[in-house]
Structure formats: structure tokens, C-alpha cells
């Protein structure tokens, strides 16, 4: 019953909200890294969907895409990142990114990137491994870049 509820809730959320929810719920360094990695992935997909040359924020979404991919890759170097779980990714069961308007997508992505920056900065302090710390800092910087590009205020 609980499982069914969770799945239904996931269907009701767009992938960005789902990634944000997962990141908020993540506890411990591996979980944070795992959720952050997935969040960058989801952001990248949402960003690509918004890369419409006729749109009002084309340039911001193009530059954000590079930052999201680089943030994801930075996390991929962290020793504490757990192996990928099998099964469907979060984004696959949620609603499509296409349903978001440019304004909604910008706001959602800016908020998620702000949260990402915050959680990754905290995570960099949690790990004793220098590889984790450096990668988290780099990824946090990419998240801050996305936040700034999409009109948000990055975490200081």
C-alpha cells in the first residue's frame, strides 16, 4: 500500500520536483551523492527540453546544460558515490519535462540547483576523502552556476 502511494506520488511530480524531493530526503554522504548525481541528470534532461532557440531563455539553458553535465561528471569521480542501482530512474516514472513552461522550468531548476549547491557544500565537509571533497566542491560550483544562469540566487 505504501509502495503504491510512493509510486503514485512520483507520477504526480514532475522529474525536477522528484529529484528535489529525493535530494531533500537523502541522508548520509553516499545518499546525497547518489541523489545529487541523479538530480544533475534530471536537470540536464529538463534543460535540453527547454533549449528552444525561439524561447526567451535559450542562451541560459544552453550554458546551464554544460554546467549540469560537468556537475554530473564531477560527482562521478567521487569515491563515495555508490554504484548505480538497477531499475528505472526517477525521471522515467515522472511526468515529462515538456509539460513545464519556460518560467516554471527556470524556477524549478534554479531552486533545485540552489538546493544542490547547498547539499553538496555540506557533503564536502562530511567526507574525510579529499577526492570527495574536491568533487563535491566542483559540483557545487556548477550547481551555483546553473542557479545564477536561471535567475536564482546561489547559496553562498
Amino acid at each position: 500500500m505504501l509502495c503504491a502511494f510512493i509510486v503514485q506520488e512520483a507520477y504526480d511530480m514532475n522529474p525536477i520536483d522528484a529529484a528535489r524531493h529525493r535530494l531533500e530526503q537523502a541522508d548520509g554522504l553516499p545518499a546525497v551523492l547518489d541523489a545529487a548525481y541523479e538530480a544533475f541528470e534530471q536537470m540536464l534532461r529538463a534543460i535540453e527540453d527547454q533549449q528552444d532557440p525561439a524561447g526567451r531563455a535559450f542562451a541560459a539553458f544552453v550554458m546551464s546544460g554544460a554546467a549540469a553535465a560537468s556537475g554530473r561528471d564531477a560527482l562521478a569521480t567521487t569515491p563515495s558515490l555508490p554504484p548505480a542501482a538497477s531499475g528505472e530512474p526517477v525521471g522515467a516514472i515522472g511526468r515529462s519535462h515538456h509539460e513545464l513552461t519556460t518560467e516554471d522550468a527556470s524556477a524549478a531548476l534554479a531552486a533545485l540547483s540552489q538546493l544542490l549547491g547547498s547539499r553538496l557544500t555540506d557533503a564536502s565537509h562530511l567526507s574525510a576523502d579529499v577526492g570527495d571533497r574536491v568533487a563535491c566542491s566542483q559540483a557545487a560550483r556548477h550547481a551555483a552556476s546553473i542557479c545564477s544562469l536561471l535567475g536564482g540566487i546561489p547559496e553562498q
Partner: protein
Amino acid sequence: MTGRATFGDFADGARALLRGPAGPADLAVGGGTPAARAGPVREFTRSMDRVVTVLARYAADVTAVLAPEASPEENLPATWSNASLQARKAIHNAAAYLQPTPAYTGPPDHPHTTDPAARRLDAATALLAAGNDLLHTHVAARPDRTRVDRSEWAPVVTSPPVARALLLELGLWARRIATHGARLALPGPAARRGTGDERYRLNAACQWLWMLDSAVQGAQRHQPVSAAEVQLLHAIPVNARAPRLIPGSAETITSLCQGTINSAERIRHAATITAPDPAWSPALTADSLRQAAASGTVISHHCELLLQTLATRASQHGSTDLATRLLGSADAAAHARAAWLHTARAWYRITTDTRGTIAPAATCCPALKMLMKASLKAPMSWCGNAPPAGLLAGLCERGAAPGRHGAGLDGRVPGWTAGCRVGRQGAGG
């Protein structure tokens, strides 16, 4: 245009100094020891030796362009190639007359030049040397003496029209130097007794400089150097780039234009100096390539918007032909944007693996390498300068979604073989 020193700055300065007076007031020496009486002649000779050394460097550069070895034109009179050879020979002969006289047994020369004419000549020499150095900032030589271009100006610096303009300048400088020297060398009042040999040698050197000018004038009559070619020579700037700056919110239009020009120059410079680098350069990273592709996309996009706006304005003013051409350019920019975006998206999915756990998927070419270092972000920030249209189109194949299975990703592209990582969920193995 760029705010940097140009060859014209130095050439004009030298020309002004050489045009300065060298009248009898400078030269008259009444009484004193023979050494004191010989002072102006000796000082000028010494200064002239210095300037002739600099002129020899110019002549060598010019000859390398206008009269390379085995040129069939070498022996044709009144041609620039012939003039360049004659100029080099004249300078060589002049220099031979300017060496210190072996027979001189007087006190050593005063370490500082005191004669006004010689001091002016020294100042001109410094400017001419700086001008020569400026030109050499654009080209370098390999150990085997072949040329290495160091900037986008290198083809200009080594072009025949600019070499001819430079030789024309050389003739002018030589003529003015010779005029000053010949006045000093004139036999005259008793005050100049005891300086006969020095005056003779100085005069002979001046004669050779006049020969140089004569050869140049002959070529100029036969094939005149245009004013535009001289202007081009004078416009050559020093090969130095402004530091990378991020535009602020209160930039003026002038500063934005300057920032755009500086950024474009930085890119072109990076493209020039990066080309010979090996493809495995560790400075190449997936991050940088992503950034370059994203910036290229945005720059193209900005160009398209600007060109469309200009086309609309042209159309409103009845310039239909101009509007059509601007729209054509806008269309080209749109194609460039599409190609850049395709590449940018490919780089979202291409990552690298230093542990060799992924299959090679894309081998990047020097164009990508060049763009990585070119820091395309800067011009995008300033206004949107045009990138090489479609340069990256088709260079990278779209791969599978990146993943993280046991790979030691470090964002680099070892051996220029980027890997399309399999999906995190294992799809596509």
C-alpha cells in the same frame, strides 16, 4: 583600434627624430683637443653604427620576403626584390665604414653621448629597434630557420606588399640618416682639423645609405607602394593580448566593443598557438569542450538575433538588397547555432575515462582542441562574436547517456579518445 602599440607609432616617432635639425650649431666645435674636436663626428659615427645594425635586421627581413633564394627576379633592375638585395648590400658596406678606426689611439670614447645629433639618432635607433621587435612578435623561427606564425598578423607581416612598404620606409630612414651624417662629414673650418679620416669614413657610410635610398626609389618608380600598403604596415600592432575580463553591468558601448575585439583576438591567438600542440594535451578536458560548444551555440544565436534586427531596420529604410544579404547572414548564423547546439548536446553525453573501462567512441580533431583553449565564453559575455560557422558540426557523435559504473572519470580526454559511457542503468552495455 586595439589600444596597443603599433609599428606606425615607432616608425612615426623615428621619422620625426630623423627629420630634426642637424644644423651647424650642433656641429660647430671651436678649439680644444683633437679628441674634443672629433667628438661630434665620432659620436655620430658610433650612433650611426648602432642604427645601421638595426637597419640590417630590417633589410634581412625584407629580403627574406622579397628576394628569397633562387628568385628569378633578383637581377632585374628597379624591382623590389632587386632593391631589397641592394639595400642589404648597401647596409653591409656602410657598416664596414662605421667600425672604430684601428689607428685611433686617443682616450676611450665618452660613455654617454653628448652630441645632440647623435643623441637624436640614438633615440631614433631605439624606436626602430622596438619597431623591428614588434614585427618579430608575430613570427618566430624554428631551429631549422623555417617560419612559425605566432599571430593572425603573421601573414601580413611577411607579405610582399608590407615588405615593400617596409623597404620604402627603410629608404626614407637611410636618406635622413645620411643627410645628417654627410653634414657632419663635410670638410670645413679649422676647428675640424684632425678628423679627416673619421669624416671620410662617415661620408662613405652615408654614400652607401644614399645608394640604398636610390635603389628603393627606383623600385618605387617602377612599382609604387600604395598609401594603403603603408597604412597596413603602420597598423600592425604588437602581438600581445589584453587580459581576460568579464563585462560589468555599466559598460559603455565603446568598452563593450573593445572587450569584444579583445576577446576575439584572444580566441584567434589561442587558435594560432594551439594548432601545433599534440592531440593528447592534458589541458584538454571534457568540461572545457562542453563550455566551448555551449558558448559557440550562444554566440551564434546572438549573431542571428543581431543580424535579423539589422535586416529589419535595413528593410524599414528601403535597403532591400542589404536586408536580403543580412538575412542571408542571419540564416548562416542560425545554421552555425544548430551545429553548435548539436555538438553541445553531444558533449553532454560524452565523458572520459582514464581507467580504460569504456569503449572509444569519438576521436576529436584539432579543431576541437583549438576551440577548447579558445575560451569562447569571453566573447559571448561581451556581445556574441561570430565563431567559425559549423566548425564543430558532425565532429562528435551522439552517444549513450553517461553513467558511472566503476569508471574513474576525471573530465579529461586522454589520447583524444572520448568515451560514450553506457547508461547508468546499464543500458547498452
